[in-house]
């Protein structure tokens, strides 16, 4: 099943390059088949437990190992579904938004890179996946043409730098232990100086790539400059890749003393991201930048949960971490698609463009509000589940009033920026007139993931159980 998930996007890309005319069709086909395969993988994993594969049939250590646990398969499923959705959206709007033909093979490669990343348990292979992901992301951003070149270049340089830091860490680890397989490495791990330095270097690189505060500076410009479907993919999926590796490193490899030293920093960075990202989102005058800053802020939740997980080793925090990732992916995809649709139709980049959008484009605005509800953490959305797990964990831990208050503040900030846009949309005094008749299909496509994130509530119990025991 894993092979199918890797080969399909690969072959899809190649055929798209050969026959560009049928590229959209191929992309949609690939994404839908992959979704089915990912679903089957999820069932397989939940029935038979983790699926581990040593590639090329060589012994462990020599071969690259892939592993599909329930978290990986969930993320693969999410990737495939979002690809499908965004592909549909792009197909529906590519004429109007002048999305280049380059989008299709690139998005397919993105799927390949992400799937490979979720599965890989080999440090160097992860590096290659990271590079693949980074370059695809930049190429996708640059689809926007001239205005996107500068942010794209900046993104690329920082992303390359991040990868190199990661690579140096890998080199040091390999020099010290002589293996690249994470499971083998974990067994031989010693919390000494080389391993600490290597971990820190890798963390630096990954934080840069995942736009975790304080290394988030490139994200708003890059995500805001990209075309709407691309922004959706980037915010929803791409930044989660490095985050996943970061969690892998710290949860599977790092020794207890190393973890204890770094946990408060992670939690602190997460908190700072939440607050400062929220404030920036509140202040920016541009609609897409607001959504992009919200990504910075929301990644702070994941970081905070990771820090708390490392510190207290409470499984609820693991659940919170991954629920944030899942819920944010869906919600942010909806946000970007909705905002993209609105700004394209109403013609403007500023938040003020949203004036009266509840009247002119009710469906897209509804999608934004619903997705925003999950970002805020209103019940019964996926964001609420994550926040609930986080709060539960903190209360059970006892005496964590500081974090609780901080979370309340962060929630209010996210509510403030979401409703800043929503309130504008209800402004009927001076609505912005659409440049052309709003189209229904893209708006529905934007609404779908927003509804999905609320539907997560229906599966909350299995999800929580699954992710709690997972914890990587």
């Amino acid at each position: 099943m894993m092979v199918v998930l890797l080969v399909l996007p690969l072959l899809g890309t190649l055929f798209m390059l050969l026959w560009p005319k049928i590229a959209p069709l191929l992309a949609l086909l690939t994404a839908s088949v992959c979704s089915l395969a990912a679903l089957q993988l999820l069932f397989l994993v939940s029935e038979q437990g983790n699926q581990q594969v040593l590639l090329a049939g060589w012994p462990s250590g020599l071969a690259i190992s892939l592993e599909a646990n329930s978290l990986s398969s969930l993320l693969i499923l999410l990737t495939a579904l979002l690809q499908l959705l965004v592909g549909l959206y792009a197909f529906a709007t590519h004429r109007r938004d002048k999305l280049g033909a380059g989008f299709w093979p690139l998005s397919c490669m993105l799927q390949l890179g992400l799937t490979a990343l979720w599965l890989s348990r080999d440090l160097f292979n992860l590096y290659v996946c990271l590079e693949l992901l980074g370059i695809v992301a930049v190429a996708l951003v640059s689809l926007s043409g001239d205005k996107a070149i500068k942010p794209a270049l900046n993104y690329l340089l920082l992303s390359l730098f991040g990868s190199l830091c990661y690579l140096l860490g890998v080199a040091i680890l390999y020099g010290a232990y002589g293996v690249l397989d994470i499971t083998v490495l974990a067994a031989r791990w010693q919390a000494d100086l080389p391993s600490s330095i290597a971990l820190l270097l890798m963390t630096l690189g990954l934080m840069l790539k995942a736009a975790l505060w304080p290394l988030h500076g490139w994200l708003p410009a890059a995500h805001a400059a990209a075309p709407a479907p691309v922004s959706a993919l980037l915010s929803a999926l791409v930044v989660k890749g490095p985050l996943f590796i970061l969690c892998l490193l710290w949860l599977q490899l790092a020794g207890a003393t190393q973890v204890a030293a770094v946990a408060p920093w992670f939690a602190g960075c997460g908190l700072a991201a939440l607050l400062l990202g929220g404030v920036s989102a509140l202040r920016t005058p541009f609609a897409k930048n607001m959504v992009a800053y919200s990504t910075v802020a929301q990644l702070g939740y994941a970081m905070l949960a990771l820090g708390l997980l490392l510190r207290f080793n409470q499984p609820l925090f693991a659940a919170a971490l991954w629920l944030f990732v899942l819920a944010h992916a869906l919600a942010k995809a909806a946000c970007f698609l909705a905002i993209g649709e609105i700004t394209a139709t109403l013609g403007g980049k500023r938040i003020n463009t949203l004036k009266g959008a509840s009247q002119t484009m009710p469906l897209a605005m509804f999608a934004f509000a619903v997705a925003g509800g999950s970002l805020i953490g209103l019940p019964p959305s996926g964001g609420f589940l994550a926040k609930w797990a986080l709060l539960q964990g903190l209360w059970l831990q006892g005496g964590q009033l500081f974090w609780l208050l901080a979370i309340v503040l962060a929630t209010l900030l996210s509510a403030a920026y979401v409703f800043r846009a929503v309130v504008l949309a209800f402004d009927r005094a001076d609505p912005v007139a659409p440049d052309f008749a709003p189209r229904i299909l893209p708006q529905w496509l934007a609404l779908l993931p927003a509804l999905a994130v609320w539907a997560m509530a229906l599966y909350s119990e299995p999800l929580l159980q699954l992710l709690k025991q997972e914890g990587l």
Partner: protein
Amino acid sequence: MRLLLFDAILCLLLLTLALASILSRQLAHAVILYIAFGLMMALAWARLAAPDLALAEAAIGAGLTGALCFSALAHQQPQLKPDVLNWPKRLWPAVFVLLMLGGVLAALLQLPPSASQLIAVTQAGIGNSGVSHPVTAVLLNFRSWDTLLELVVLLLALLGARQVAPEVKPATSWPLSLGWSRLLAPMVILLAGYLLWAGASQPGGAFQAGALLAAGAVVLRLNQQLSWLSWSNFWIRLLIVSGVLVFVLMALLAILLTPGNTDVVWLRWPPHLAAGIILLVELFATLAIALTLTLLVAGEPASTGAEHGCGEGA
């Protein structure tokens, strides 16, 4: 002792060149210094018992990157006055760099002097890998998934570069170089073929061969030859894609050829077929790499874009 002195001089040279490249006033100088640095690096690697890597570094690291940088430099606007940084702007990064350097050095000094035990495992596995050269065995058998992804990255770089590519101005050809390049081309092809073949047992392989081929093609292209060599040509596209495609197809074929009672393992070559498969994969990878690099460096021919429809094969 004398060798150590040689090492010391080499290292010093490397550091100086790198520093000079970073600090030099003019960009053109920086690029030239970087190329020199790359060549010195190749020397150092040859000294460190890695001749195949030295070859690759000379071709890819110094040559190709240098060529790319020069072509980028041509588009760069002449800078009127070089930016002068005031000292705090230099100091804080320097402090940061020193801190990081200290940490990295401290970690590196504690590394064990013995190499990985994986060497022994690799040696044990080589018999079944289909090739005798261990690096090739790792690249195309033990860790072939990495290599496959790496080919995808290369392809991706081409896609990305094509997508943002500005219109190219047709360069004027120089008669002497035209003659030279015609003479050079067959030699380059021969040499590349040898490198590819040698890769199975000696230093060499797809990447070096591909880079060499690309160098030849770039020279020809710069002299207005090979106008058929463009992305819009379906066959060229097919060849570029074939590097990955043949790899994947071989892997799928290998799965089909595996006896039914064993587990399906992705990218496992049946031992008796491994040599053939690897040679085939390498051959196409070389062609693909050569074409990709050529297109990356030389860009599209200015005139042919309109002549070839995009979907000839569709």
